């Protein structure tokens, strides 16, 4: 029986493949084609809020795919079908620019790092210091960071180096998490004592963790560049989305999530040019 029901599914699967191809051949059908947006994990919540708003605003359907920046970059390198990519650092985006895979990026938003420690840690240890200063005290500390290959991990190490604490951090490191969410999860669950994450990773009043701001001299500003993928199937729609996301319309949502605004959007100029082109068309 199960075999037979599986067999029944097969033609369905083939059919859906056929539909997909059909759609590819006729890009100017009635419905506008779905715009595929690859975005870094930390941008997820904001974009999930803004996505439906943009769909309502422009009638352009959007599909979000959220993953670590490196994974996204790899997907673009492997030629996955997508239109827009937003990463959590410049280096990852620059590697795509260098390969000619994306158009000139624009800074979508900026983020900052914070030190987090599990709730209750302060009561258990004797030392009076909190925050990264714990790293220079003899107390035992289980530190988790994002892996050095991940933007959040690279920034965290840079911040610790500026504080002269990198070596003692390495001595207390128990895990290189594969993305910044892993760091937060392990501290929130109380399995690790402390970690460094983006300010935006913490929902307001997140339970289970105490947030400590890093000293200004250690603060590394994380830029989130966004760019159109050169192989985009709807380049104009992709540019419009990027212009909207970097416009003043979305600033409040980014701000509420803890992001600082990115580059002042040259949206007026960009839109003007688009409109001009549009006017010239018969």
């Amino acid at each position, binding site marked *: 029986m199960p075999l037979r029901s599986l067999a029944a599914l097969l033609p369905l699967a083939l059919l859906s493949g056929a539909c997909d191809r059909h759609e590819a051949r006729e890009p100017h059908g009635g419905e506008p084609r779905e715009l595929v947006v690859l975005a870094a994990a930390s941008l997820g919540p904001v974009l999930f809020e803004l996505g439906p708003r943009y769909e309502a605003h422009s009638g352009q359907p959007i599909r979000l795919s959220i993953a670590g920046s490196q994974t996204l970059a790899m997907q673009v390198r492997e030629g996955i079908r997508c239109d827009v990519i937003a990463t959590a650092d410049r280096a990852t985006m620059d590697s795509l620019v260098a390969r000619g895979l994306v158009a000139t990026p624009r800074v979508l938003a900026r983020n900052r790092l914070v030190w987090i420690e599990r709730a209750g840690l302060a009561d258990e240890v004797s030392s009076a210091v909190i925050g990264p200063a714990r790293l220079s005290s003899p107390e035992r500390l289980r530190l988790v960071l994002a892996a050095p290959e991940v933007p959040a991990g690279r920034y965290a190490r840079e911040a610790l180096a500026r504080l002269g604490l990198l070596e003692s951090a390495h001595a207390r490191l128990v895990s290189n998490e594969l993305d910044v969410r892993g760091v937060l999860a392990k501290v929130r669950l109380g*399995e690790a004592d402390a970690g460094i994450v983006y300010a935006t990773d913490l929902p307001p009043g997140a339970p289970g963790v105490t947030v400590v701001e890093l000293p200004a001299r250690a603060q590394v500003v994380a830029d989130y560049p966004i760019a159109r993928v050169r192989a985009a199937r709807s380049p104009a729609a992709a540019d419009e989305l990027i212009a909207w996301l970097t416009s003043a319309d979305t600033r409040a949502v980014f701000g509420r999530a803890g992001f600082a605004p990115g580059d002042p959007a040259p949206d007026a100029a960009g839109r003007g040019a688009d409109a001009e082109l549009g006017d010239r068309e018969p």
Partner: protein
Amino acid sequence: MSERTSRVVLVLAGLGSLLFALPIAGLLARAPWRLLGEVATSPITSTALALSLLVSLAAVLASIVLGAPLAWLLARTSTPGRRLLRALVTLPLVLPPVVAGVALLAAFGRRGLLGGALAWVGLELPFTTLAAVLASTFVAAPLLVTTLEAGLAQTDPRLEQVAATLGASRLRILWSVLLPQIRPALLAGMALCWARALGEFGATITFAGNLRGRTQTLPLAIYETLQTEPERAFLLACSLLALSVMVLAATWRRTAA
């Protein structure tokens, strides 16, 4: 079987083999073989490889010690709740590995069910090599248990009874009567268990974390390398593939013999 059905079967079987063969062919084609020497001798590879061997072998050992008695219980006795027990043992096979990792944290983490008791005896599992072994055992042992149970079900308990009436000790019966009969199943179970333990990723990253030399097994090293040097990751993946094939091939020949 009619001519037409057999052709359908052939076509589907052909598609099926392509599904398995193509990703492997892709991996082999994409790997930068000129870097082989460099990658093979790099510290990240050797450390991860050594740790992977240690962790997976320890997991196989633990699976035999804890799993063989379970298989025997399931195959030979009519213990009440046997079906429930069998379902429980097979559960890790269908559980997504990350869920397995979360479950392990819930049981053996610092805040887990046994966290307090473990801390009392001075044991803290998360982020340790032992945690990686536990994660691998949890996901891989069911393969050994189910294979061994199937093997045991085909043996005849009367042979052991005869041996007992002839005065053989329990150990002697196990070694000279039971073991020769279940050898193929035991070896196949060990091979599957080892291969699965070698490839463990999700439960390990969740429960044991990722630290070179302590919990970074080969699959974790592959994933981390994929982030920065994807070409090298292909090569590392090939090495894991070769290792798994060797494990399976070695035992396949023995079980077939």
